[in-house]
């Protein structure tokens, strides 16, 4: 299954800037990025290996394709590539409900949903959410986010920033809100991949921290889910294998993206020694690694 990340948000929220940085980024992943229009995509000509109408292939292994009103067809094209991509990113149109686009991640054969990232233009989001034409559309977009990036915060004063953060917390009550500028956010947060245990710094507002948890002990399913639900909002991503007390045969996969998490059946342990191994990424200052480890330990049987 290829993971799918949906990037949503209204016009001017910074989706294109983020997509440009994903395409050119040093993340070591072969991404397939599906966009509505090449028009605004700005790819360094030296990086372009081939351009055949609705697909641009980059020398770093990434491809960018246009959706042209038929997302299913575009996904099938990507899935049929000689070497399928490691990860698919779908840009939702400015008036689309990203939750609807996420259905393709959940339901299209060969794909699984990684997460829904919604961008909001810090300077304009409140006006947009009250607009006579698109107000409701924008509110739906905010509500669809697993992780909400409040972009263009460099244009705001500290007080403005605070007020829009407070407003967003009420508007999109579940999702994790991260202030940022120029969509500058570590790829590990966006795509949840390559999460190596290091502290990652991203300018200018947030600093991210990684927490690693390992134990050979089995965890109690109910208790684990209850603990996760009590974690602070600063936890943005978590991923790894879990040894559950109620299933000695299989590993289970925990995946957390912002406000949403799921625990699904993984591979059988076979020769491997069963052990839980999780990587958590969060906003520094909003998470405490000792507390999180203690929380996980208390779910052990």
């Amino acid at each position, binding site marked *: 299954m290829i993971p799918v990340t949906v990037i949503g948000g209204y016009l001017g929220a910074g989706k294109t800037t983020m997509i440009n940085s994903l395409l050119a980024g040093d993340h070591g992943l072969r991404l397939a990025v599906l966009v509505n229009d090449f*028009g605004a995509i700005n790819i360094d000509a030296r990086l372009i290996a081939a351009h055949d109408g609705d697909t641009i292939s980059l020398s770093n292994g990434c491809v960018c394709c246009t*959706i042209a009103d038929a997302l299913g067809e575009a996904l099938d094209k990507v899935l049929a590539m000689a070497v399928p991509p490691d990860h698919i990113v779908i840009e939702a*149109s400015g008036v689309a409900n990203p939750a609807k686009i996420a*259905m393709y991640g959940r339901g299209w*054969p060969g794909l699984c949903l990684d997460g829904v990232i919604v961008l909001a233009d810090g300077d304009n989001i409140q006006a947009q959410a009250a607009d006579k034409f*698109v107000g409701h559309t924008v509110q739906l977009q905010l509500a669809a986010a697993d992780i909400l990036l409040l972009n263009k915060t460099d244009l705001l004063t500290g007080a403005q920033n605070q007020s829009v953060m407070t407003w967003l917390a009420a508007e999109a009550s579940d999702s994790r809100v991260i202030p940022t500028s120029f969509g500058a956010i570590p790829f590990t947060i966006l795509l949840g991949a390559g999460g190596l245990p290091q502290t990652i710094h991203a300018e200018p507002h947030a600093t991210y921290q990684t927490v690693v948890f390992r134990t050979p002990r089995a965890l109690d399913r109910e208790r684990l889910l209850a603990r996760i639900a009590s974690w602070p909002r600063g936890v943005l991503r978590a991923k790894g294998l879990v040894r559950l007390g109620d299933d000695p045969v299989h590993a289970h996969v925990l995946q957390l993206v912002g406000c949403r998490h799921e625990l699904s059946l993984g591979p059988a342990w076979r020769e491997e020694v069963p052990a839980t191994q999780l990587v958590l990424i969060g906003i520094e200052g909003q998470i405490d690694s000792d507390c999180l480890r203690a929380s996980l330990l208390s779910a052990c049987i």
Partner: protein
Amino acid sequence: MEPITVYPARMIRTMEPALPTAEAVAVRGDKIIEVGSLESMRPWLDAHPHTIDERFRDHVIMPGFIDPHLHPSMAAVLLPMHFTTALEWHLPWQDVPATRGHNEFLDRLKEIDLDMGDPDEPMFTWGHHPIWHGEVDRRTLNGISANRPIIVWHRGFHTLVVNDAAIAWMGMDEADGERHPQVNMAEGRFFETGLSLAYRYFNPYILESKRFEGGLERLAEVVHFGGHTTIGDMAAGMFNLDMEWDALVKVLERDDTPFRVQMIPPGNALGGGQKDGDRLVQRTVGLRERNTHRLRFYDHVKLFADGGFYAGLMQLGPPGAIDGSHGEWMTPPETFEQVARAYWNAGFKIHVHCTGDMGVELALDTLEKLQWERPRFNHRFTIEHFGVSTPEQVRRMADLGALASVNIYYVHELGHAYWQNKLGHERASQMSRLGTLARHNVTTALHTDFTMAPALPLNSAWVAATRISEAGHVMGPEERLTLDQALRAITIDAAYILGLEHEIGSIRGGKTADFTILEQDPYEVGAENLREIPIWGTVFEGRPHPIKRP
């Protein structure tokens, strides 16, 4: 030079206020020479060789009917399917009776199954609606046939239901369906984004070129059967322009095709991706190089505001919908404005799909801004569909010089349902508010958006002049058109919407000889009986084309 042919008739309704009725029309080649009487046109006949053709002696001649907004490609996909609609449909090859109630619906499916020869041929049906037919699911359909793939398509295309045999025929993995949050495998039901999973398996079959061309042949029959001589393809290239264009030229650009098609392309991709105005305009202008005799692109372009009316996705202003549901935008307002500006400044005539009053509001706000920036006269900015609107918007349309092309069938098919479930009586009875448009002198055409409504102009005129809903109520009598206004809206005023009023739409010397030949005079039978008038056939560019009776 060819001889003149004179057609005397029982009555000629010219739709020209300067000479509303006449007794004979003289035609040379594809042009009208004169309309009047045999005596009045004597100087022409004395000066040039002519024949008197008596075939329409007992008929009524009207200008060829025009539907400025339908969708040949959509029809080509749908017409090979079996109709199971709650309302009756008159098709050239079949009168589809109204199917009402759950049992009647199932009986209809059984009947289609029995009628189909090949026991393995998939049965695609269109027209199911839970309001009238109740719910059906996979098990119900298995009960109709265990072997034949059955696909039941919703009237408004938002769900489809299949049986076991269809799933096997599709070659779809059951597990893929079970995983999808918008597919209910146990019920065999695909909805919203789940539909694209079904299309993945159907498209190669329903868009296959032989089947698609067969569908276009049927569309050509439908268009002729309705008495049209001109139609507008109001989103040319909705599936794939090159594929559609090749099929359209192959099937319609024939000597015996009795109508022309004005091709109006979408101005940008749906979802509103593209914004580079100059590039879009250039591409749209370039389409004219394809033009053939019957199929022509002009300086018209289609843009989209809010969602579909049958799907209930129109953007409503206060007080919103009874069920609290919200509409959708097909284009972000900023993109809409940007793209509209590019076409406006390039001199295009812009048609905007607007279904709810907020959709109309967006179109008018944009038009007002463009008028302020760069005033244009005779710009023909047209609101298409016009489901829900306010009277103030109509006044504003008049002030800004906007026109209307209205789907009036909404009132007939949805008037009662939207009264009960969505809008309440006040707004549902004032959907497609033609009377207000007429009172403000806004030039208005009727369209069917076929296959959204039957492609029968006299049926559209009947709804416009009576506003009778399928449930039998008169919905908003003040919004009725007069008989004359309704007939103008399928002839000369429809020609105006397409920018072809100098060539077609009325009967006068110098215009193209396009006629619709009726067995009765609409002005004699009156508004209530318009849709019952039998049509003999048409004259297209001077050549008679009778409708073949089975």
